[in-house]
């Protein structure tokens, strides 16, 4: 259970990075990636995954 970022669509704005409650998102080279081992889909923190909620590009931050 984790989310992933479609790198080709990511604008690298970084909003997901600081909204992530578990610090699962890091910049790697030119894009952000989600560490599936750390991602909890925000369970226990928020109703909805924050990365997907804040992402400005549709269908870019999706269920892995």
């Amino acid at each position, binding site marked *: 259970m984790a989310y992933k970022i479609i790198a080709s*669509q990511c*604008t*690298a*704005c*970084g*909003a997901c990075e*600081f*909204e992530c409650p578990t610090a699962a998102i890091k910049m790697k080279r030119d894009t952000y990636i989600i560490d599936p081992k750390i991602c909890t889909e925000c369970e226990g923190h*928020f*109703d*909805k995954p*924050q990365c997907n*909620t*804040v992402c*400005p*590009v549709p269908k870019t931050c999706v269920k892995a």
Partner: protein
Amino acid sequence: MSSPIVISLDSLAPVDFEAMKAAATSGGCASTSCGSSDAPEDMDAALWARIKDHPCYSEEAHHYFARMHVAVAPACNIQCNYCNRKYDCANESRPGVVSEKLTPDQALRKVITVANEAPQLSVLGIAGPGDACYDWKKAKSTFEKVAAVIPDVKLCISTNGLSLPDRVDELVAMNVDHVTITINMVDPEIGAKIYPWIFYQHERWTGVEAARILHERQMLGLEMLTERGILTKVNSVMIPGVNDEHLMEVNAWVKARGAFLHNIMPLISDPAHGTHFGLTGQRGPTAAELKSLQDRLEGGAKMMRHCRQCRADAVGLLGEDRGQEFMLDKLPEDVVYDPSRRAAYREIVAEERGDHVAAKRQADEAVKEVAAASRPVLVAVATKGGGRVNEHFGHAREFQVYEASAKGVAFVGHRRVDSYCMDGFGEDATLDSVIAALAGVEFVLCAKVGDCPKDMLSAAGIEADDAYAYDYIESAIGALYAERFGEQIARAVA
């Protein structure tokens, strides 16, 4: 003939320092003794001191001082229908567009490099892409780093307002003196047509509810800034058929809450930009529609008319962009700030300005007198800064438009054009587009103009004149107006 790109701040400094100085001190009036670097008559001195070096807050300052934007805060918490976050192009000039994003340390290196090379620099702004109050850590860190090295650079921030109330106290603590809020509506029903969603308190909100939250936060932010004495500019995107008439109401609301300046910006809309408005065929206003709305808003919150809707990584005087000269790969690894050139430039401007203000006053009086018996006229001016008619017609990438009327000589806007002359050749097609851009303008004043474009302009009913080359803009317009329209009166009377 040199390429138009090299004309810019360089031509004012340092090569022209001496020329500027000579011009400033020549003539019967020893400029400094005029003492007219004073505040304009309708403004108190303390306020004037805060805005006189800010090209965006003072129309007068924009002839002398330059700003730079650093794109350090790319994350945003709202989506606007005129914005596409994926779009980026080095040749585009409009808000939100950048060629590269910077870390705070890279931004510091860039600011120091620009300050060393462009002494006109007075303002550092963070203006997107993204929202500086939302992507706050990076914005704050950039300001702190720069203020530690160049303490007299004015710090400036642009925001959509949603996170603004959370940051106001820190903005005050960091000495950020100028804040711009983009406010496109005060009616959430209209807001729903402009903002598809916002991200607020960890949730995505849509429709009227989203617009209501945004509106309330914007008003709260504006009120908090006013209470703390921070100068606030309100930017509104004019979207014909959506909020154009409504902006009258927006103007009244923001005036009541203490906004210092209101800047109505025309929607920039093109399918190629991939924005919602671009893709759905929403058009932007014409120059005439924009001016008409601005004219109707006179008397409300003060209008800003000299906005160039610059890129989020623009560098230089408004209306020019040297951003490409200061890309990351062109910056030296180690930079040391040298304050001497900025200090020297400021001294010269202080002298020149007194003289300019006096000249303006004279021109105003002359025009008022003639206009009482005549009609208003729009005059376009080719300038590369310093408040003078000093650009060749063919090199101009924009014309500044002034109105001579019973109110005197007033700046009313600018018209962006492609330079007509490229490496010595003039393109007829380009000239046609320049003529189209100058719709409504009767005279063009420039430092030089060739016979061929002059004849074509004349056939289109526009008279181009280089007789006033290097004069102050207002003096040139005053002299032209008195000559043409004063004579008419004389003839009519005789």
